[in-house]
């Protein structure tokens, strides 16, 4: 790939910010105020004034409009206002890629990537519609009781587990690792709520093959990252965290309606993975720590396999809790507690945790982490992923 068409090292994350994380519906603040709060915190972390932010990028139809944000924050100028299409958390790393592309090409100088959610204010995910009739693609699924994200994705995971002989213990290992790491993280909604094998096994089914603890939380809060050109990274206080790669997209006809995508039982990442590693100039063995979006553990299962961390015939052996624990596991995973046990901020909290790992600031730090990867929103389309690297990786 010609250097001019790679993002590698051209952009750095210099600030991260999060509001406190609340249980769904319990935020004392409305959604837009949460967005402002997270952005201001991220700018404080970077040591810049919000007035110098000149771009915003988000995903999943975030409701906090960039022009209103820029007006509220007194931004001197707005040069980039971007939305990654596609639902769910599949756009988290994609929004970072979009922001980075704007900076790398000179369209903007300082772009904030953010996501804000107040489900108490705007209604819940994971609930069926309350209308009397439904038309379009969902007319072919909802009347059969197939309506929530969990119900949509269980169908893919069931087929994957069938095809490859995956045992329930593989999903359990992912959940236990998230809950383990959340116990170290005072910000985590599930801090002080440990989970063991028995607790998992005895939890109720939501939809087979997902137990309660295979499903993400629903939360209120906001998260933001500040991105600038890579050559400016050294001017900031924190250890530099460079973007090595960002990709978004999906395979052939991934969006074919009514579960008709030809390659069905997949995390949707197969065609992205070669581009992800090629731009970053690393492969899976170079990755020190992984944040892998858990809408449901089954998505993490397929993501980890399809990103090359584990062969298909080794899944039941590899997916053990200890392999996923920081600091010493083979693949430290979701070290903040992730969407299962820290907070569900549509996955943007995973990107922030990946930055913390490069800075050495995680509550479950992987020693000397240099290559830190994020997989955003498996099983939807488009999905996205990114890799961050420390100074030494450039």
């Amino acid at each position, binding site marked *: 790939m010609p250097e001019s068409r790679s993002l590698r090292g051209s952009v750095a994350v210099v600030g991260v910010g999060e509001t406190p994380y609340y249980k769904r519906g319990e935020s004392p603040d409305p959604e837009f105020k949460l967005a402002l709060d997270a952005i201001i915190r991220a700018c404080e972390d970077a040591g810049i004034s919000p007035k110098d932010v000149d771009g915003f990028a988000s995903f999943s139809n975030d409701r906090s409009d960039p022009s209103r944000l820029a007006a509220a924050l007194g931004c001197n100028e707005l040069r980039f206002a971007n939305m990654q299409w596609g639902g769910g958390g599949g756009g988290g790393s994609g929004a970072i890629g979009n922001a980075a592309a704007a900076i790398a090409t000179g369209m903007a100088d300082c772009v904030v990537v953010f996501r804000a959610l107040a489900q108490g204010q705007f209604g819940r995910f*994971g*609930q*069926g*519609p309350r*209308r*009397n*009739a*439904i*038309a*379009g*693609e969902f*007319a*072919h*699924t*909802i*009347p*059969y*009781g*197939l*309506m*929530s994200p*969990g*119900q949509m994705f*269980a*169908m*893919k995971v*069931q*087929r994957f587990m*069938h095809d490859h002989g995956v045992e329930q213990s593989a999903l359990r290992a992912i959940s236990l690792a998230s809950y383990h790491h959340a116990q170290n993280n005072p910000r985590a909604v599930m801090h002080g709520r440990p989970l063991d094998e028995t607790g998992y096994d005895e939890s*109720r*089914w*939501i*939809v*087979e093959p997902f137990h309660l603890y295979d499903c993400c939380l629903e939360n209120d809060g906001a998260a933001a990252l500040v991105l600038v050109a890579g050559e400016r990274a050294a001017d900031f206080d924190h250890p530099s965290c460079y973007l090595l790669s960002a990709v978004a997209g999906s395979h052939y*006809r991934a969006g*074919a*309606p*009514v*579960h*008709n995508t*030809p390659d*069905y*039982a997949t995390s949707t990442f197969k065609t992205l993975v070669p581009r992800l590693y090629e731009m970053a100039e690393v492969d899976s063995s170079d990755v020190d720590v992984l944040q892998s979006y858990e809408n449901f553990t089954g998505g993490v299962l397929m993501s980890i396999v399809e990103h090359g961390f584990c062969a298909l015939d080794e899944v039941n052996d590899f997916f053990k809790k200890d392999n996923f624990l920081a600091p010493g596991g083979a693949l430290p995973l979701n070290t903040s507690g992730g969407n299962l046990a820290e907070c569900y901020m549509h996955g943007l909290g995973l990107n922030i945790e990946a930055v913390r790992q490069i800075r050495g600031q995680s509550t479950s730090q992987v020693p000397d982490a240099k290559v830190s990867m994020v997989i955003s929103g498996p099983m939807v389309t488009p999905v996205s992923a990114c890799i961050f690297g420390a100074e030494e990786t450039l």
Partner: protein
Amino acid sequence: MSSAYLAPGLPAPAPSPDGLDTPYWEALAADQLVAQRCANCQGWQWGPEWICHRCLSSELSFEPLDAQARIYSYERVWHPVHPALKDQGPYLVVLVEFPDADGIRMVGNLLGDPQQEVSIGADVVRVFEHHREADPPFTLLQWRCP
């Protein structure tokens, strides 16, 4: 209505306002299963779209689909996300494929004991579940093991 698999109260399917899938719902009401087929390349296509994804022809029609059907994947739902299902108990949703019709797939319920063993790859046969007293009336496409 006592023959319906799921408790009443879920949103009823309505033909798309732009008419894209109207022939499908009309056929179900008449105990027929149809799917889109391209007059130019003879390929089957589902869900419905305005053009054929293979040859981009817009010469699509809804043709009778009598091919073998088998279970491609399934799930047993325990936690209801819609109030109409709060007393339903577990239920089975199947993704059915038509291997001789270019592998197109459709979603339905697997009738019978919701706790039955389900085998991916097993043949299933169609059942037209009519809701003729509903306003407006509609028909669901269900499945059972032979």
